[in-house]
């Protein structure tokens, strides 16, 4: 195409030196392969297992005693620590945290963009992190620095992708914070709450539901998503088929699916926005269940009251018994625990399991 670029034998000392330098640079970059793959590879290459399958990863030394300076990089984990009654251990949270108990704590960036500098500045003795690709470079760097420092601190990476992982997380976090019994209690309480909703849904007719998390573009919970699993527990059938967990869904397909009910989980967007989807018959009929907060999709203790709200919305006929989310008499603290849902805040839902919030 471009004759001037045809290779020719090198001529002149400068050209030859230039070509030599370039070759050297390319060789050097290939030789550097080893160090680039080195440090903190354990965080980079998780087993692919969730917390429930033992997929939690410790990077760095396990704490010898109960950690006293804990930095939490996901609001759902903050909720776990609060529900364990261990607020006094926290020294830093994300800017997305909206629990009133941590309103006065220093912020260390967001869920997707934690600030390593702010985290180090708090001299933590434990960092809790929900595994996510967006934050990986910063957390990996943090792990490398911790390893190289004289006072290395551990990072506990928790891959939370499904309901079982949410239920298992308090057990792992309680263990890490030196309160295994409390963690076990909270895990059991949450599991009992989920199980009671599942039982109540079992005898009921499974409604066909479209689960909407974004209206423009239309983003819905597909097969394999956290939402899909929650719908099944709440006694509903997801109308969405396909391969992707959070697809951008063609509106005409949503119309053709003709769900009986639309769940509007875009809790941080104005309620009226659902009318953009008026082409869907259920929306025209007003068969819309609007979730009052994003508790349901927070992969922490708030999921249980969220699930209760979803169940009541889908099965109003079965909800007249006045059942309240009952995590069990042994739930240690009301704060952030099931039943105590703080008002929604303005930032987008942070811990969205399965990633892919558009």
């Amino acid at each position: 195409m471009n004759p001037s670029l045809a290779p020719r034998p090198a001529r002149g000392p400068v050209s030859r030196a230039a070509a030599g330098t370039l070759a050297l640079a390319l060789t050097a970059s290939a030789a550097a392969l080893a160090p680039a793959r080195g440090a903190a590879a354990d965080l980079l290459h998780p087993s692919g297992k969730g917390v429930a399958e033992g997929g939690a990863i410790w990077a760095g030394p396990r704490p010898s005693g109960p950690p006293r300076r804990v930095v939490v990089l996901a609001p759902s984990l903050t909720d776990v620590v609060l529900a364990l009654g261990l607020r006094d251990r926290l020294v830093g949270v994300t800017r997305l945290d909206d629990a009133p108990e941590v309103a006065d704590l220093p912020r260390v960036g967001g869920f997707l963009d934690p600030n390593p500098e702010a985290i180090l500045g708090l001299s933590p003795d434990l960092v809790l992190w929900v595994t996510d690709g967006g934050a990986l470079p910063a957390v990996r760097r943090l792990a490398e620095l911790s390893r190289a420092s004289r006072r290395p601190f551990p990072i506990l990476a928790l891959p939370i992708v499904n309901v079982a992982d949410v239920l298992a997380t308090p057990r792992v976090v309680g263990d890490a914070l030196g309160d295994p019994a409390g963690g076990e209690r909270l895990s059991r309480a949450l599991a009992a709450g989920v199980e009671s909703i599942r039982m109540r849904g079992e005898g009921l007719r499974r409604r066909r539901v479209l689960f909407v998390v974004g209206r423009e573009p239309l983003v819905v919970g597909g097969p394999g998503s956290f939402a899909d699993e929650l719908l099944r527990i709440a006694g509903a059938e997801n109308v969405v088929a396909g391969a992707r967990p959070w697809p951008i869904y063609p509106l005409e397909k949503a119309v053709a699916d003709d769900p009986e009910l639309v769940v509007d989980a875009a809790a941080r967007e104005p309620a009226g926005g659902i009318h953009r989807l008026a082409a869907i018959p259920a929306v025209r009929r007003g068969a819309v269940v609007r979730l009052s907060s994003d508790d349901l999709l927070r992969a922490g203790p708030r999921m249980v009251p969220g699930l209760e709200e979803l169940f009541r919305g889908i099965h109003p006929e079965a909800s007249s018994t006045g059942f309240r989310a009952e995590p069990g008499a042994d739930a240690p603290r009301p704060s952030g625990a099931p039943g105590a849902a703080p008002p929604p805040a303005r930032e987008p839902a942070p811990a969205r399991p399965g990633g892919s919030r558009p």
Partner: protein
Amino acid sequence: MTLSPAARLALALAAGLLAVGLAVAASCALGAQPISLGAALAGAEPDASILLGLRLPRAVLAALVGCALAAAGTALQALLRNPLAEPFVLGVSGGAALGGSIVLVAAAGLARVAGSAGEALGTAPPVALGAVAGAIAATLLVFGLGRVAGRLVPEAALLVGIVFNAFVAGVITLMKMLVPPEQANRLLYWLLGAVGYESPGTIAVGAALVLGSVAVLVLLSARLNLLTLGDEEAATLGLDVRRVRALVFFAASAATGAAVALAGMVGFVGLIVPHLVRRVVGPDHRLLVPASALFGAAFLVLADAGARLAFLPLGTEPPVGAVTAFLGGPFFLWLLRRSARPEEGTA
């Protein structure tokens, strides 16, 4: 001022190195977390980790990227004989992002079939080589299609580059739909242009590529002077035009590819810096190339520090690519108006 060429070069290099030093020092001194420099240098934690483990590597990364982009911009301007040429505008950065993305997506696919092989493919060196290959392909495309009746027409080449950029953005968006969410986040990073926290190994790979290709451009800088005269004149003066041009193409593409592999698509550095440096040192590429490389490094270090500090009260930071585009977009338009005037010669 009458100085010998050697003295002028020494002066320009000294000023450039001083600028890089000051910029890195400023970037190391400022940040989200107040630290004590004395304590950090004495090894007290967490000050030492913040200064030496976070701020310094990040400043070095920004310096490498700025150095590569400014040097590549200077070289491309000489090749195209037009001051508007720039790796980002010409689509060379876009080609690099596409090349790197293809390697990342291939790695994600391979990881599903053969785990460790896929992981190896997804590490810094293969991605960097993919980016370099993409940059070279884009350069060939732009300079090949920018010819009308065998003559290189700068406006045509620029238009090809702009269209190619839009094409790349579309293709990367399509690829984003096909990969798992974690990979999608990584791909998005390519388009944003952000200096982040890379491991020392990755920085070493980038440094080898950047310093090697910038060294080539510096070695060829005297020949770039001849190239700007036009192919015929340069050939008459004894220059092997094809050979030199191919090397400059290759080195500028390699520098851009390395920069994109390290920090994604940071735009307009190769436009702003060479232009400002040219105003001070003049059009002689023997001065212009090394001085642009150094001041480009200083510029991006400061731009990144600015990005880190500007939104500090909100607890977040914009990608540095947004800062350079904010500065560079209007600058490009101003240059365009200015070079459109008939009495102004092009550099």
